[in-house]
Structures are given as C-alpha cells and as structure tokens.
C-alpha cells in the first residue's frame, strides 16, 4: 500500500470544513460535481498535506469552477490549458501539492495537446477528469467522449464523431498512473484519490460524472444498483478479475479478454486473469474495454509505474550544473567571452 493510502484520519488537525471556501457552490442541483467536491474536501485532511501548499488549477467549463469552492490556493485558468499552468507552478515550487481539475471537453478537446504532454513528462500532479460525455456550461453540445450518433443541440441528426476513451488516451500518452472511478461511489472515489495523491508523478484519474441536465444517466449502467455489478469490474492489484459478485470473471484468450461464467462447470476463479497494476500490457487490454459491450467496464487503478518526475529531473539538472560550474555570479557572466578595456 503506498504511503498515505490509508490516511490517518486527521492530517494536521484539519477537517473537511477547512477546505470549504465561503463561495456558494453554483452547479446545478443534482450535479455529480457535488459528490466529487465533497469527496476531495474529505480526502484532503487525511493526506497529511499542509493546507497552504495545496493548489487547484482548472480550465474552463463546469469543472473549471472547482477551485473557487476550495479554501486553498487556486487558479481558474484558460480552456484546456490547466496542465500548462500547473507545469510552471509545480516545477517552480516542487513543495506544492498541485491538483488539476478538468472535464472531457476541456482535457480532451481543446486541451488534448497539453494533457498528453503533461502525462508523458510525468508532471507530479493529480489530474481529475470529470467525464460527463457532454458540454455542460455551453448548454449541451456533444463532447469528444460522447458516443457516436449522439443527438444534441449541435448534432440534431446524431454525432458522426468517434469518441475518445480517456483511459486509453492516457495510457497511450505513457501516463505513469491511470485510474477510473465514478461520482456515485464516494468510497471508491476517495480510495482512488488517495492512491492518485500517493503516486509521485502525473496521476490521471477519470471520474464518470453525471450531468443530470444535459446527459442524465450517461453512466447509469455502470453506477446504478441494478446493473452496476454486471457492468462494472473493480480491479485490485494482485487479485483475479471478477465481477457480478464473483459469479463472472475475465480470462485471457490468446491476446484478448473473454468474459467467463464462474458458476459454470467449465470455469473457476483460478482461470481469471490476476491483475497486475504494473503490467502495461494488461492495462492496455483493460483500458481498451470501451468499444466492446460484452465486457464489463473496469474501474480502479489500471496502471501505475514508478519513474522520475519532470520536476525532479529539472531540479537535479540545476543542481548538477551548479555543482559543476559553481553558483553563477552576475559580474562574471557579464564579463564572459571576449572583452576589451578602454582606459
């Protein structure tokens, strides 16, 4: 279990209330964002982080308002560009605990470029992607995660855009931590946020979030009681991939995943693939479950690897150069190269 995963329930004697700003929360009643905000405010006291070191950076959209509701440092930046601001901030002051809050349009459409580069560089931040498969703040256009054929105000005859699978995008961009959770399971969400926070590097966490105004029920098959167990699979490192209360599982058939019935005589839990979060190939297999309806959607930490963060490498280089050349003095710098003196 990574450090901080369990939490100590107290941190620095802070409580949820210490992280609530005095600003009225202005999301629509019933929005999934409330659950995410509340979970973040409950998690932070358990992380043992000094409040003044916490910074939330957001882009534009409904998720963009997030920093205003947190009584921490924060910046509501530019559409899609939060990773860029966070990069400059984190690299400038590595002591800060930087969270990026973004949405499906913000992160994957206008900000797609910055997201992939923050991931490949491994900027030590937590990236919370609120995916509701719709543009909310601009009042209901299809988004880059909306399904093909989606009928919206901007696509009255159905969308002809193939959707992104955010987890596959993150894995493709060599993210060092990739997880997925849902707004309707605060306990799981909290555990995933803690895991993301404990990871040194760019932690990408996709959160299925219900927009009850423009895309109500987009994820209900995964989040609601009557279908959740059949359609959602919660992966655990070192555990076999089972779901439907242990009655079903996933096994490897060649290079493909196959759903198997564990109640039949043919299969047992020992046939199920044992998940290894450090196995990139396994993560790719599971991460690609998106276009296949016959397989359950995986949730949890899908991939995690330890590798140097960009900020660490930057500062190691600064130190190495300074050690080699000595701390710079301005006088010597200005007089470097060929000089001549006129008396």
């Amino acid at each position, binding site marked *: 279990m990574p450090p901080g995963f369990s939490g100590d329930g107290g941190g620095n004697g802070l409580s949820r209330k210490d992280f609530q700003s005095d600003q009225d929360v202005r999301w629509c009643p019933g929005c999934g964002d409330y659950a995410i905000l509340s979970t973040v405010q409950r998690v932070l006291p358990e992380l043992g982080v000094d409040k003044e070191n916490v910074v939330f950076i957001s882009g534009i959209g409904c998720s963009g308002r997030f920093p205003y509701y947190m009584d921490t*440092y*924060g910046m509501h930046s530019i559409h899609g560009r939060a990773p860029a601001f966070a990069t400059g901030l984190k690299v400038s*002051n590595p002591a800060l605990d930087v969270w990026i809050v973004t949405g499906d349009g913000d992160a994957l459409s206008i900000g797609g470029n910055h997201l992939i580069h923050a991931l490949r560089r491994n900027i030590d931040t937590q990236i919370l992607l609120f995916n509701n498969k719709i543009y909310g703040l601009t009042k209901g256009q299809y988004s880059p995660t909306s399904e093909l054929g989606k009928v919206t105000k901007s696509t009255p005859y159905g969308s002809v855009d193939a959707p992104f699978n955010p987890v596959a995008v993150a894995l493709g961009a060599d993210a060092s931590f990739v997880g997925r959770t849902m707004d309707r399971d605060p306990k799981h969400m909290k555990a995933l946020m803690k895991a993301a926070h404990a990871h040194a590097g760019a932690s990408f966490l996709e959160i299925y979030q219900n927009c009850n105004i423009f895309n109500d029920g987009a994820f209900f098959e995964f989040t609601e009681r009557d279908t959740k167990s059949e359609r959602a699979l919660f992966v655990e490192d070192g555990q076999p991939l089972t779901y439907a209360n242990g009655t079903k599982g996933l096994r490897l058939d060649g290079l493909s995943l196959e759903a198997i019935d564990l109640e039949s005589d043919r299969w047992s839990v020992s046939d199920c693939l044992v998940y290894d979060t450090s196995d990139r190939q396994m993560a790719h297999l599971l991460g690609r479950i998106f276009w296949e309806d016959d397989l359950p959607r995986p949730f949890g930490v899908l991939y995690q690897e330890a590798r140097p963060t960009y900020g660490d490498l930057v500062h190691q280089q600064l130190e190495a150069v300074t050690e080699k050349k000595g701390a710079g003095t301005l006088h010597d710098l200005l007089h470097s190269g060929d000089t001549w*003196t006129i008396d």
Partner: protein
Amino acid sequence: MSAPDTAAPTSIPEATVLFAGDSGDGMQLTGSQFTLASAYAHNDLATLPDYPAEIRAPAGTTYGVSGFQLHFGAVDIHTPGDKVDLLIAMNAAALKVHKHRVRTGGTIAVNTDAFADRDLDLADLDSNPLTDGSLADYEVIEIPLTTLTRDALADTSLSKKQVDRSKNMFALGLALWMYSRPVAPAEDWIRQKFADQPAIRDANLHVLRKGTHYGETIEAIGHRYTVDAAAMKPGTYRAIRGAQALALGLVAAGDQSGLDVFYGSYPITPASDILHEISKHKNFGVITFQAEDEIAAVGSAVGASFSGNLGVCATSGPGVALKTETIGLAVMTELPLVVINMQRGGPSTGLPTKPEQGDLLQALYGRNGEAPLPVIAPTSPGDCFYAAYEAARIATKYMTPVMLLADGYLGNGSEAWRIPSIDDLPPFDVRFETGPTDRTMHKDDDGNDQFLPYVRHEDTLARVWARPGTPKLEHRIGGLEKEARTGNVSYDAENHQRMVETRAAKVERVAQDYPPTAVHGATEGELLVLGWGSTKGAIEEAVERVNESGRRVGRVQLRHVFPLPRDLEEILDRFETILVPELNNGQLIRLLRDTYLRDFQPLNKIQGRPFRAEEIVAAIENHLG
C-alpha cells in the same frame, strides 16, 4: 626577396565590410572573427548577419547566400552601415545578391574559382559579371581563392573537402590585412576551437596567414587602410548580440530581485536564440521549459509567476497571436509576466528571418476586452539587456504582463557594449505578502479570516502578491471578473467598470518611473524625428548628418511605447513637423494621433530590412523643403 610594400595604409574614419558566400562557407564565423579583431582595435562597431530561412539551401544558389555585415570606425557607429565599402563574395550567387549594397567606387573581392558556367547557372546569371562589364563602377579584386587555399594546403593530409572548408580563413586573413586589423585574436580562436584536431588547426592558421601574405604580395590591391581607435567611454566592453543581451538581462533581473527565472518557450525564429543563450545559465537557478506549443509556453510562465517566480516567455508575432488569451488572463489575474516578441515580417508566417515593426498594434490592442499592458522597445542590441531587466522590474512592481518588442535586427545584430557595473543597475525589490496583516485580511461570509488578494499598493495600484505555500493567505484567482478587494467572482456592473478603470490606471502609473525623455540634436524648431525601438541607429545617424549640413533637427527615440512618456506632449509642442519613421505601414503614428490629436508625418518601410540612414535623411530634407 620580399615584395615591395605597395600598400601604404590610408587612415579612414569608418568602413563597412560585408562577407557573403554560400551557407556552408562559414561567413557568419568569418564576420564574427573580423568583428572581434575590430573590437581589439578599439573601434566602435555594429554588425548584422543576414542568413537564409532555409537551413541548407542548395549550394551556389542565391537563396542559399549567407552574409555578415560589419560597420566599424574611429567615430560613433550607430548602424551596421548603409553602403558597403568592401564586399567579399565567395561565389557568383553572393555577388549577385549583394552587389547593389556596395557603394559606387567600392571594392568587391571575388573568388574567381566560383564563376564557372555551372556556378553562373546556379546563381541564375545569364552572363559572367566578371567579364560582362556589369562591375565597371566598382574596384574589383579577382582572387582564385579556392585554388590558392588548395595550393597552400597541398602538403597536408586533409581531404579536399576539409581543405576547401578553410578558404574562409583566406578571406578573413586578406580582409584583416586590408584594414590593418590584428591577426592574433583569430589565431587564438583557431587554436582554441581546433585544440583537439591539430591538423585542421594548423591548416586554418596557415591559410589565415596566407591570406594576409597575399594582401602584401599581390599588387592588385591598390589600397590598404587603418581605422583608428574610437573615443569611447572608459570601461570594459564586449560585442553583444541583442538575443544574448535579452537573456543576460533576464538573468540579471533574477539575480538582483532574488526571483528564480522561469523561461517557458516554444521554438520559433528568431526568438529561439534567447532560449539557447539563457538555457546555458542554469547555475543561476534559471529554469527553461521547452513547451509543447506557444500556449503552453506562456501558460507555464504564468503558472511560474503564480508560484512567486519570474515567468518569462519569448516568441515572434505568430506566437504572440497564440498566447493572446493567456496574456489576457495575466492582465485579469494581475500576475507579472514578461513576453518578448522578436518581431519579424508578417502577417502570418511572413518573413521569418527579416525584421519588421509590424506587431505594435498587436501588442497594444491584440486582446479581447479592455486589456492594456506596458510595452517597451529596446533601441539597440546592448539596450536589450536593460530593456529585459526593466520589463521584469515593471512586471513585478505593477503586477502586470509586459510586452517587450525587439526584432531580428536587434536580436541578431551586435554592437560594442560597455558592460555595466552591477552596482549601477536599478534596484530591484519585490514585495511579497508573508502573512496576514490588517490591511489584507477580512472576515468572510462564514466569519472566517480571509486574505484579500486584490488589495492594492497605493503607489503603484499593483495588487498584493502572495505565494502559494504562505500560510493563511490562501486565495483563488482566475479569468472571471474580480470583486475589487476579495478577488471573488463578480458579475456586478459597477464593479466591472471600476476594475477595468483600475487596471488601466495601474498601467498608466508605469510612466511615473520613466526618466525625462531625451531630445537629441535640436531641442526645438522645424522638425522632430520621433522613432521607436530598433530604428534608433539609423535615425541617429540621419539626424547627425542633416545637422552637420547646418539644419537644426531634433530626435526622440521612444523606448517606452506604452504608456507614452508624460513629458512627450510638451516636447511635441516645440516642433513644427514631426516625422515618424517606422518599419511598418504606420502603427505608432496611430497611437500618437489618437493620444495627442494632432498630425504626424509618416515614413514607412516594409521590406523586411532596417532603415538606411540615407532614407531618413531624404525624408527629413523632403519635409524641410
């Protein structure tokens, strides 16, 4: 038996030399070494490289020609020179491209080995200029440069290619001899550069000396010159290019303010040279970040400023276009930011390697909403150092993005720069909030103590700057309109007007720090030449020339383009005509007409080239009648 000394040197006050050849001929290096020799001869100087946008254009073609121009003298040198006294053309294409820049009666030294039929074809020449009479107005020195270099190195083990590569040293040696320059600096440089390759080192030294000997022995060269030391202010000097000076100015700003410099940048010509320079100086704690695009570059810089560092980014016009939205955010969040625009010919990709002053209106007005910011324009390569330092100082003192408008002419050009004493740099103190004070705290709606990030300093109207990591000063900023003190989101009508006016008033306050505007030449009278930024050298030379002929013309060069200096109007009142030369289609002149409600006379050049002094002289004389 030694050759007779046919060339008794003539003393001249100044000269302009242009080395031109193929991109692979090493002309930039040759020019730099000639510059160094002139510096050691204590001449004042200015240089301008002129190289193609293509990295390796086909050899021998006109678009592959690379040039390096140097103006040096015993007198004050303001520009890299209007007209060339000596052109060294390494091939037919170089001669074709640069011939028109040589003054009538000037000298053209050509490498006759590069005028075969194929060379003429590549240069798209119908006839051989060496024989068709087209060089009748010049003094031509024909030198079989390639053959002589090969002969000189006949005994070495070097390959033909290596031998031919050293022919630029022959040209350098000859040019040094013609202007009685010291040879030792170039020799020292060769010894250092090729310390690990003794064969190449010795070959270059040998060819360099052969070049000087050639000047002594060949009778074809009728003239040899000396240029005395200039009467320069005592001090230690170095040749500095504008891009280098900008980088050093930023390092100096970090050093003197105690702020770590964060330089976010995306490669673009001609701004990349600043990145190349500043990334060498990591032992000053400078962080350089090569971003994924222009938007990320400026975003990272704003993020760095939010952290309490000095966020800087540099680009050219197209890059500024992409950064526009983020610069607006820096206006709204009132965070310091330095944006350097190495202007180039536009619009769009335009003329990537050619200078233009076409982005002034973009700097002033190129953002959505009411988003004024200070604009500073350095006036010479060396001034780039001070401009970068000052831009950083204004940005942090007034909590505002600052646009610095340089261009490729300043960035690539160099001059003899008197190195400042560190003690003479303006003081650079930064005010951070370190904890709660009565002035910056209030009780929020829930009765809790809350920091007020938009409380302002009375002298500057700058808001307070609190770094994340400072206990009890947690606050949120962003692009939505801010309530005047709390910084909370506010859509209140009156608050918005007040905030727009406050941000504008803050930027206007920047002018309170300017020194009095200097008027050179006549301080009143018939005509004032009012320029801005990089045109200073040409205007200075032009006004001096006109005044030498008995006229009384004044000149002012604006470094601070926005806000305009408070004493400028009173200066304008003292002149009948005001001539505004710009390397654009008339941009400063719009600001001037708008601000002062009077007329100004434009002089516009939009050719991707700097002004020549004679063009400004002609315009002045035209107006004086």
